[in-house]
């Protein structure tokens, strides 16, 4: 395996959890709900994924447990913000805080335990192709899920009637409601999907990226995913581009350090964030584009009148 190929593989691993969590949040925000609890749901996915794998002995069961944990945890947010119409920002923030604390408690018996890793795909012949072999035919299963999720979400949002309905709810829930669309039910499902994705992203951390459990192991990745959604102006393909840009710059700066170019390491460490901010600013200069894509009712509670 050449160094170039190896770098690409590392970038894919770094980008996958960001991409999955961001795709989930994108669907949530397209429905007009702002869930700032991504970090909390993600860390719950990580701990339950690890616990599931450790208790059952199978990383596949861990994967399911991680997804389930994120989904269940998101419903706490859904009940509070959708049924009781609490403030979404405050509720999302508390979901993150709760997730970080709760995961530490659940994870305590698993600290220091060596985890099991989800096996990489291997197709004899194809996986050995030079350069692209390992990249396309030899990755972990969650990588393929991330590709399917990205393509699937783009198709769903922009090519199906249900996707159109979801987007219309995000722009104007009152109108959708008068047309007889069950706004709250749609939003519940969107939040559920977002939670499941965050859980999957967390499980990627504790079952593929670094198969172990350490407290706060998401280390802010949920927040980066949230930023990516805005950066991508709520479009799935751009979310993927953003996740890979962020992953690429992260890995690139480490290689630059190891090669000893003599660039200050603090600057290099800040580079991924800097690159994302710069791109974000450039994107948002196009006012019309932002207007078209931003869900108009984002973050506003909706209470259907009876």
């Amino acid at each position, binding site marked *: 395996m050449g160094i170039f190929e190896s770098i690409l593989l590392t970038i894919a691993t770094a980008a996958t959890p960001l991409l999955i969590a961001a795709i989930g949040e994108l669907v949530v925000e397209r429905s007009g709900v702002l869930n700032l609890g991504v970090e909390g749901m993600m860390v719950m996915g990580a701990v339950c994924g690890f616990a599931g794998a450790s208790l059952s002995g199978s990383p596949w069961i861990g994967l399911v447990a991680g997804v389930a944990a994120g989904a269940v945890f998101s419903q706490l947010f859904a009940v509070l913000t959708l049924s009781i119409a609490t403030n979404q920002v405050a509720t999302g923030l508390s979901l993150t805080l709760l997730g970080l604390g709760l995961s530490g408690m659940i994870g305590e018996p698993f600290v*220091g335990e060596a985890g099991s890793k989800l096996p990489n795909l291997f197709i004899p012949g194809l996986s050995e192709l030079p350069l692209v072999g390992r990249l396309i035919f030899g990755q972990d299963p969650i990588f393929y899920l991330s590709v399917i999720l990205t393509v699937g979400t783009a198709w769903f949002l922009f090519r199906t009637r249900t996707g159109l309905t979801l987007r219309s709810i995000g722009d104007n829930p009152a109108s959708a409601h008068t047309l007889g669309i069950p706004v709250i039910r749609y939003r519940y499902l969107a939040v559920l999907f977002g939670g499941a994705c965050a859980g999957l992203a967390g499980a990627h951390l504790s079952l593929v990226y*670094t198969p172990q459990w350490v*407290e706060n192991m998401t280390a802010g990745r949920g927040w980066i995913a949230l930023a990516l959604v805005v950066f991508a102006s709520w479009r799935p393909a751009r979310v993927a581009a953003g996740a890979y840009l962020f992953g690429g710059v992260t890995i690139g700066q480490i290689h630059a350090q190891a090669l000893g170019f003599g660039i200050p390491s603090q600057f290099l460490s800040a580079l991924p964030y800097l690159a994302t901010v710069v791109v974000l600013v450039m994107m948002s200069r196009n006012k019309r584009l932002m207007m078209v894509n931003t869900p108009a009712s984002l973050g506003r509670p909706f209470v259907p009148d009876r």
Partner: protein
Amino acid sequence: MKKLIIGLAVALAASTAAVSAHAADKTKACFVYLGPKTDGGWTQAHDVGRQYVEKELGDKVETAYVENVPEGPDSERVIERLARSGCSIVFTTSFGYMDPTLKVAKKFPKVKFEHATGFKTAENVTTYNSRFYEGRYIIGQIAAKMSKTGVAGYIASVPIPEVVMGINAFEQGAKSVNPNFKMKVVWVNTWHDAGKEADAAKALIDQGVDILTQHTDSAAPMQIAEERGIHAFGQAFDQIKAGPKAQLTAIEDTWGPYYVKRIKMVMDGTWKGGESSWDGLKDGILTMAPYTNMPDDVKKMAEDTEAKIKSGAIHPFTGPIKKQDGSVWLKDGEKADDGTLLGMNFYVEGVDDKLPQ
């Protein structure tokens, strides 16, 4: 019946009194932690020390701790709350608690404070630290013996003197075995991000490193080393579970005995402020995990070096040593003084990296 009730009440009152009298006898030792107490690294090592205190001193001591306390002004509030809550002694276990500890200590002259890895003391404040660099010298030697490519990778956290000292000690150890040994340093600028540490480990291995060492908190680099079939050294904890074939040894922090010693001094009134304690391998404040996955001659060399450091025959920073820029730091036979080490902000000759300032 009435008598019985009165009797019970008296007994109850007596027992409560006994309990509170008992509680007053207890010495309360409190700890402020930077990370979660199960971080698998720095903070956990301190918490293991706290549990050791409870085990050793039993009823005579009561401990309390606050985890996840950010460095800086926030920590002042936490330290003050502990001081107010009746702690006899407060251990603040991270470098960044230095000034907050001193500020609170001024307000509570009767409470005793011990600050880990700092360099400022007061009437009721001492500092304590561990000579980690002694362990790093040993692993540097092992790395130079074991590496086939002649290049080691060093995953560093943040550029404070403690970390720079570790890199230099590793380099000194490696150079003593193989003068041409090379080292690649990657700064991840965090103590605690398993993913980033794993990324750094992969990048270093991709660039031809076949031995990894780290000054960050998670076992992720050890796992990557195991996966890629190279060797690595554990940090703060024995990480053999994460790398049964990869781990050569680990530098383990063993704070327990020190904490017991200091709390006993508080109990019998011999505790004094203004002191700095900097113990090393010989005092058992750091220990080397079993030397594994290496041939016997390397193991023997490591054990010899360990014994010589304990006896004082080897000091990792003994001249002649040049700084990275080629200027002389220590003359032939000269040993580094503790003050310079604790404020170390330069690389020794041979480190292939630019120190972030």
